[in-house]
Each structure stands twice: as structure tokens, then as C-alpha cells.
């Protein structure tokens, strides 16, 4: 199964770049993930100062420029892992290195074909379509 790992900045950190030590710790962790064949993709994201948000409320769209006052939910980086089950993902997650300040890492399994049963029938899924982006982002 594939899981999304969202590294979130919390309290007083607006997604500023990590310290050299934290960067090195993350580098070692990623090395471990690669050698175990677990890491599929990942990237760090620039600080909140360079971010933009848009709120959508019905027809109303409001753009907010970073940095944001509310940083609790600021995604600072993401990784995609391929693991056998959530237990394995959790075991890896416990090894996630400490970044400066207080952090929260969120683990979210990808939707798979079976999860889309309410929206797309298996026949629809299996029938070739032309010129449209896939409904499934995953295999």
C-alpha cells in the first residue's frame, strides 16, 4: 500500500528551512528508507513566507499571502512510502527524525480502486477512455 507522510510545522515555526543537523538527520533517515525500498517520492517545501492560500466558500475565492499566523497545519514536507501495511508505516514513522521545534507528522493511506467503488464502477475503471486525465492517481 502507498501512504502519504505529511511533515507539519507547529508552534512558532513557519516552515523555515531545517538546521544543518536536522537536515543531516533527515538525510540519514531517507537513506534508510531508500535502502529498504520504501521511499517512492518526497520533497521539502519552502517556508510559509513564500506560500499562498486560497479559501473557497461557495463562489467566493480569497487569496491569503504567507507567512501565516496560524502555523499549526503548515505542511513543511512530504514523502510517499510503499509499505506492506499501516503497522509497518507506523514503525517507520516512529523513526522520523526530530526537526527543530514541535512537529507533527501525519500518515495518510492513498485511496485505492476499491475505495472509489461509490464513484466509479469496476467496469468504468477497466474501460479505456480517451483524452481525459485518469481518475486514479495510483496503480
Amino acid at each position: 500500500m502507498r501512504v502519504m507522510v505529511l511533515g507539519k510545522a507547529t508552534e512558532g515555526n513557519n516552515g523555515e528551512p531545517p538546521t544543518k543537523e536536522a537536515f543531516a538527520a533527515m538525510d540519514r533517515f531517507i537513506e534508510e528508507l531508500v535502502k529498504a525500498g520504501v521511499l517512492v517520492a518526497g520533497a521539502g517545501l519552502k517556508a510559509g513566507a513564500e506560500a499562498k492560500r486560497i479559501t473557497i466558500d461557495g463562489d467566493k475565492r480569497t487569496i491569503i499571502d504567507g507567512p501565516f499566523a496560524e502555523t499549526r497545519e503548515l505542511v513543511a514536507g512530504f514523502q510517499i512510502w510503499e509499505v506492506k501495511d499501516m503497522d509497518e508505516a507506523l514503525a517507520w514513522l516512529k523513526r522520523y527524525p526530530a526537526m527543530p521545534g514541535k512537529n507533527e507528522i501525519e500518515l495518510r493511506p492513498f485511496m485505492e480502486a476499491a475505495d472509489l467503488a461509490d464513484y466509479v464502477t469496476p467496469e468504468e475503471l477497466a474501460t479505456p477512455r480517451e483524452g481525459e486525465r485518469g481518475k486514479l492517481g495510483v496503480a
Partner: protein
Amino acid sequence: MSRDETQRAIEASFRIERARLIAGLARMVQSIDRAEELAQEALLVALNEWPKTGVPANPGAWLMTAAKRRAIDAIRHERMRERKHGEIAQTLEEASDDAAMAIEAALDDEVGDELLGLIFVACHPMLTAEARAALTLRVIGGLTTDEIARAFLSTEAAIAKRIVRAKQAIAAAELSFEVPRGGERAARLPSVLEVIYLIFNEGYAATSGDDPVRPGLCLEGQRLGRMLAGLMPDDAEVFGLLALMEIQASRLAARLGPEGALVPLTAQDRTRWDQLLIRRGLEALARAEALDGGGPYVLQAALAACHARARSAADTDWGRIAALYDRLRVAAPSPVVDLNRAIAHSMAFGPEAGLRLLDAIADDPALRSYAPLPAARGDFLFRAGRFSEARGQFEAAAKLTRNAGEAAFLRARAAACR
């Protein structure tokens, strides 16, 4: 955390460490069997200790230390037994002390090559490809014998026997658990790559209705390929194989039709191809090409990449595919490659070019009862406007194939020849 949750957490943590643990132990005690036992004993200690102390900061090192203690205890025990037998041989005592010291030394040795060494042993060319696959899935992939049996449509007893015999052969040959170097490494790598691709293909051949363990083999193959790429970052063929598997796996969701029939590449819904895997595949291929790779896996990956890059079947760069088949034919000669090369040339340069290449291989005994040969000839003849000849070829191909869906498709093509 409930007891059950704690146990699951410990087991998951153990699973991550298991292969490296066995690899490190096997190198010390020179036996896969003994290493597996020691790892299992370490797990039991962990299941007993960790609920009280919590999971240690470095579970791998902790488990290794626990297993090492067991190994040393066993050696001491052996020494005591020898004493009881009255043979107070100084040499023996020294020997067992040396063994204990060697274990201590190996623990401090952060080479990290143990896993690769174990992969090379489990995939030693003296073992059959099936034995290599079973042993690799067991000791590196961590699958149970039951899972391996289901994956290969075999029985648990047969797989268990295969694994035991493989281990016996390894012990009898006194194989070294060191990573082979230089020429030996080059000579043994193909049998490692072959096994990983065999595991992947076994999963790729499974259809959706089967036991999920079988399609799961694709993931096992990819995982092993990714692992190997992490351990051997300078080998072009390792990245070629990885690229090939990633790109092929990107099509898993698009390759089966509503009734489970295989959808040919050119008819697949490309919007369902997994772009993340395609990107990974193209990156691995770029790496292989940067390493000057021109081996069979790199070439096959380059072929797969031609399809992955084409937005639609009509955009396919058949000229490049034909050129790659010209090279693959030299790197890995086979009648099937020759046939595919003829198909590529027919797409790039017209049906006559394809027919000329088919004539050159028509008498190959390996292709005598091979349905794709007359099917390809029928297609070339059809496209050349030679309908009555084409019909005969499609009918011949329909008679040769054992796949009902394929036969129906070929008969429909025969019927359309007018």
C-alpha cells in the same frame, strides 16, 4: 497502547530489521538457518522486554545485540559441553573465544554490506531460479512459506522443501557471505537480477481475480529492485531492471479489460498509467544511461520508456523502438526479440520491412508453434492489402493459441480480411 497493539508494533519494527538482522548474523555464524533462529530468538526477547521498557531508540542495534548474546551463549554452552566430555583441549577453547570475539568485532563493523552479501548468497547461480526466488522472498522479503506457496501456485510443503534444500546446498558449498567483488560480482549479478525480475513477472502475469498475494509479487519485485539500487548505486543493469519494473508496473491498472482479458499496450487507457511510477522509471533509466548502460535490462527499460513517453498510441516513436530492438538483438539474442523487432520495423518502416525480417526467422524451431508469429505475419499482410493471405495466417494463429480470448480476437481478425 493495548497488549495486542504493542505486540503488533514490535512485530512491525522487527519486520523492518529482519532482513538486515539475518544478513548480519549469517555473516557471523556462516549459516542462514542459524541466523534465522537467532533473529527469531531476538524477537522473542523483544516481545518480552519492549512492553516494559518501550521500543528502544535503535531497534536494529538492540535486536542485533540480543541475537549476538544468544550466539555467544550458545558458543559458551558448547565449550562447557566439550569440557564435560573431558577433552580439555586448549585449542578448542581458544577457537570458541575467537568466535565470540569475531562476533563482537563484526557488531562494531558498520560496513552495511551484509544485506547485499546475503542477497548474493540467496541468488547464487548454483541454485535453480525457483529456489533462488523462494529463498530470496523468505529471507529478504520476509514472506512466510505459505505466502510464497500461494504466490507460486505451489504447496507449502513443496516450498519449504525447496528452501531447505537451497540452504543445505549453500552450507555444503561453504559460500562466503561477503559481497563478491570485481569479475565475480559481474558474473553473479545476472542471477540476482533474473530472480528479481522473475518474482516481478510472476505477479505481473496474475490477473485481478487471483489471490492478492500473486499481484503483490510485483510490489515485492519492485521493493527488491529499489533495495538493490540503494545498495548498488553504480551498476547500470540494476537501474535498468528497476526502470523496467517501475514502468511496467505503471500500467497495472490499465492492462486488464472488464472480463479480465489483457488489453494490448496500444489499446490501453494511458490516463490510468501511474505517472509517479513512470517518472521513477524514467529517472532510473536516465541514471542507467548515465552509467553507460547498454545491457539487456537497460535496453528493455528504454523500450518500455518509449511507450511510457507517448501520450497516445499514435505518438509512439517506432523508429526509436526499431533501433533499440536492433541493439537488444545483439545484447540478448532470442527468437522472441527477433519477432518483436520485426513488429517494430513494420510499424516504423511499413509492413514490407516487417515481412522481410519475418522471412529471416520463419524457420526458427523455437517459433514453430508460436501463435504470435503467424499473428504478426497476418497483421503485416493485412496492412499490405494482401487480405486472403492474411486470413490464412490469422486462422493458423487462432489454432495455435491456448488462450480463448486471444483465439476469439484472432478469428475476428480473420473474418475481417476481405
